């Protein structure tokens, strides 16, 4: 960190700029040289070669010149020098050793390497090489290399890089790298000696939303009292943008957690909310869905054509598997306990325990790996540098689609109509010829199937292990009760509400305490409004 003494020194230097110049004659030379660069790049390259291998100082100077040239041809040459593969023949020709043979550094033609000597390095040359390579990489044909170079130049910011960065910026086409180069350029301008250049840098940095730019500005504020006001302004502008970005990212994280909760709770909203059956094995159905994803993935390993489709194919598979389990459970067990919710709770908990243990014995207790398809990996940059992870974005979209499908199934299908009829008045529905037992089984299977689909999505962001579902069951019930039992809209609002509140609390309370707060808040809310946000009114409320 800069101390006060250093700041004073810098202040003195500001008043007497010539001091710096006299300390670094090479630097001024380079600066002047680089300013004239764009027009004379070709000449600079050939001219730069001359001193190589004639002595350490000459080599170092020539490396500096090559670095300043900004010519891409200098890159392989300096790399060869760095690796000890650059040779100088007695006649002055420079060769690059390439395995057994050698090529002429200037023409690239094969050349005779007899009698050639390796150009030797000392520390001064190495330092020069490092700088030159860094600068030259800015114009490298490889985007990753340019990106790395921009980072390096940003870290070692100095005024002499300004012209170089200017040319690199003009040439650059990849937006992400352009942004990095622009940042490095602005930071380098800040190190320049003339106030106009400095102010240009401050303005450019102030226009970004980067914490790094903020740090650079704060550092510069100590050494540049003359433009402190402008720097303050720029920092404030960055802070504001950062705050907006942070808010946007928190919102996304909240929505993402909300989508996870929504997926986990949606099945419950059907079985508990619509049917009134409390299924503590719901979490285990989610877990079964995740394991179905794993099985589908393993089964498709042998078929290269279908392999990329394993995840989409797992969705119907998981639905069918868990729906079948749900139907079996409803017909075999739950049916006998209708009207006794507490017993249903205990019984389903026991079933969940057995499912979990079966999976543990069959697949082992360790986590199973699910491979994410390429289109779900990586991070998406939204405008304003808001980072959004692809898999979470997909899950958000997926959860809304599943919600839409669930609503549609209940509203617009024959099955949904029968389901609502049975929920509203079983005896009348039965007398109208609806087979209520069958509808019960199908409804429960439907809710369980949604749990399985949730498992497919959760397999992308959570560990697939036998106790995957345990973590979601309490949250899911709170979401359903919070939103209002029997209301899918309530489940939607409840899930996204609890998710967002949780993520908003996290930065200042920590992840665990935030969760505790949300649990307590949800509990208190339920005390105030026992029927949830979207309370059902009328006769259904007393059921």
């Amino acid at each position: 960190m800069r101390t006060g003494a250093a700041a004073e020194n810098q202040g003195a230097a500001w008043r007497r700029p010539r001091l710096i110049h006299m300390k670094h004659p090479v630097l001024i030379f380079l600066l002047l040289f680089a300013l004239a660069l764009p027009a004379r790049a070709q000449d600079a390259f050939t001219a730069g070669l001359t001193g190589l291998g004639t002595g350490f100082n000459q080599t170092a100077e020539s490396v500096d010149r090559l670095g300043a040239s900004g010519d891409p041809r200098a890159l392989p040459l300096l790399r060869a020098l760095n690796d000890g593969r650059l040779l100088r023949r007695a006649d002055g020709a420079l060769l690059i050793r390439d395995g057994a043979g050698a090529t002429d550094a200037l023409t690239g033609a094969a050349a005779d390497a007899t009698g050639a000597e390796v150009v030797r390095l000392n520390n001064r040359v190495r330092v020069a090489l490092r700088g030159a390579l860094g600068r030259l990489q800015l114009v490298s044909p490889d985007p990753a290399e340019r990106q790395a170079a921009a980072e390096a130049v940003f870290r070692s910011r100095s005024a002499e890089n300004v012209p170089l960065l200017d040319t690199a910026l003009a040439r650059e086409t990849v937006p992400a790298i352009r942004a990095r180069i622009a940042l490095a350029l602005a930071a380098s301008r800040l190190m320049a000696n003339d106030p106009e250049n400095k102010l240009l840098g401050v303005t450019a940095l102030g226009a970004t939303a980067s914490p790094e730019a903020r740090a650079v500005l704060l550092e510069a504020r100590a050494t540049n009292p003359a433009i402190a006001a402008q720097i303050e302004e720029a920092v404030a502008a960055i802070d504001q943008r950062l705050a907006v970005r942070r808010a946007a990212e928190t919102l996304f994280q909240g929505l993402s957690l909300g989508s996870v909760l929504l997926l986990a709770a949606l099945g419950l909203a059907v079985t508990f909310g619509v049917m009134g059956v409390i299924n503590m094995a719901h979490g285990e159905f989610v877990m079964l869905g995740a394991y179905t994803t794993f099985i589908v993935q393993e089964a498709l390993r042998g078929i290269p054509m279908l392999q990329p489709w394993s995840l989409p194919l797992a969705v119907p598979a998981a639905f069918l598997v868990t729906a079948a389990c749900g139907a079996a459970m409803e017909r075999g067990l739950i049916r006998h306990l209708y009207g006794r919710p507490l017993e249903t709770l205990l019984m389903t908990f026991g079933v969940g325990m057995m499912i979990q243990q079966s999976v543990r014995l069959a697949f082992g207790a360790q986590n199973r790996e699910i491979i994410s398809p390429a289109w779900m990996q990586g991070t998406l940059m939204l405008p304003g540098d808001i980072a959004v992870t692809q898999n979470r974005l997909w899950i958000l979209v997926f959860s809304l689609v599943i919600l839409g499908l669930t609503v549609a199934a209940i509203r617009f299908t024959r099955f949904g109509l029968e389901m609502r009829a049975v929920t509203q008045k079983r005896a009348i529905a039965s007398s109208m010829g609806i087979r209520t037992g069958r509808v019960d089984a199908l409804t429960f299977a439907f809710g369980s199937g949604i749990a399985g689909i949730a498992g497919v999505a959760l397999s992308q962001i959570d560990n697939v292990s036998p106790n995957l579902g345990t973590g979601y069951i309490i949250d899911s019930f709170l979401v359903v009760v919070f939103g209002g039992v029997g209301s899918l809209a309530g489940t939607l609002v409840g899930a996204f509400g609890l998710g967002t509140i949780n993520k908003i609390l996290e930065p200042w309370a920590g992840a665990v305490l935030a969760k505790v707060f949300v649990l307590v808040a949800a509990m208190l809310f339920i005390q105030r409004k026992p029927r949830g946000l979207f309370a059902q009114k009328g006769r259904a409320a007393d059921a």
Partner: protein
Amino acid sequence: MSLAMSPIAADARLRLGLRAGLAIFVLLLGIMPLLNLLPVTNPLHVSDFLVSITGKWICYAILALSLDLAWGYAGILSLGHGAFFALGGYAMGMHLMRMIGPRGVYGHPVLPDFMVFLGYQELPWYWLGFGSFPFAMLMVVLVPGALALIVGFLSFRSRITGVYLSILTQAMTFALMLAFFRNDMGFGGNNGFTDFKELLGFALNTSGARAGLFYASLIALVLSFLICLRLTRSKYGRVLTAIRDAESRVRFLGYNTTSHKLFAFVLSAMLAGVAGALYVPQVGIINPGEFSPANSIEAVIWVAVGGRGTLVGAVLGAFTVNGLKTWLTSAAPDLWLFVLGGLFVAVTLFLPKGLIGLIKGRGR
């Protein structure tokens, strides 16, 4: 023979039989630590392991009794009774930590090891007073009681019943578990409390102290049983049972159902706290795992297996299920969770009145 008897007489006889069985059972438990003193070669010798594990089961039986009072008599299916048990245990644990004194690894005269390790300078305010045994014992009942009072008051007043209350209590214990896992709560985080040295001046690792704790637990069990018996046979108990069966009707008859339920719930939480406090010195450790929702729901199944709504049943269930657990987890560890899960299913579907119901069915 039973044909000649009226059903009421048969019922009374059965009740007498159960009581006699319980008395014999308590007597048998009472002589266990004495039999432990016999030489190993004696066929009546009882091993250390059996004595210590029976001591644990006695604590579980108190927990089962307390849960039965809430669920079996008041109809409050609490899935968070493990939290009250753990809070009582933590209160006792705090006292035991203070009793370690300077014998900890770091040798600090006042602060427990984990606080020295975490850089505490002095005891947090909520640790003050736990050096005194009577204060700690007061906290053993007051802390769980206060939590039950708050949660119960808010819930019963809002008329939250049935599964909603169950989920709420489960969320309560889950939230407490997460909170106690945090290091900066001042309760030892993940590791909880352990390495206890002494209680009331007795070193905990002696067989004398073990026997003492065993008897203390046994006395607590008998006392809890008598309190619950007295309570459930009283007019208050009748009203409580009526609330369980038809809360609205009892309310319309002019009873304040909220306060009736609240009293039962708070008393039940206090009993659970006592059970936890007796449990901790016997097992020598308390950590946030005790708050896990699975523990609470396991306690529910003890009561369900024994027969809810009967005090003998709760005790019987606690001993039966835990005996089964101890045997199976060593004989066939993979099988235990199937058996436990199967118990949940079998009891709810086929044996709603539990083992006691089975015995009564035979008695008729």
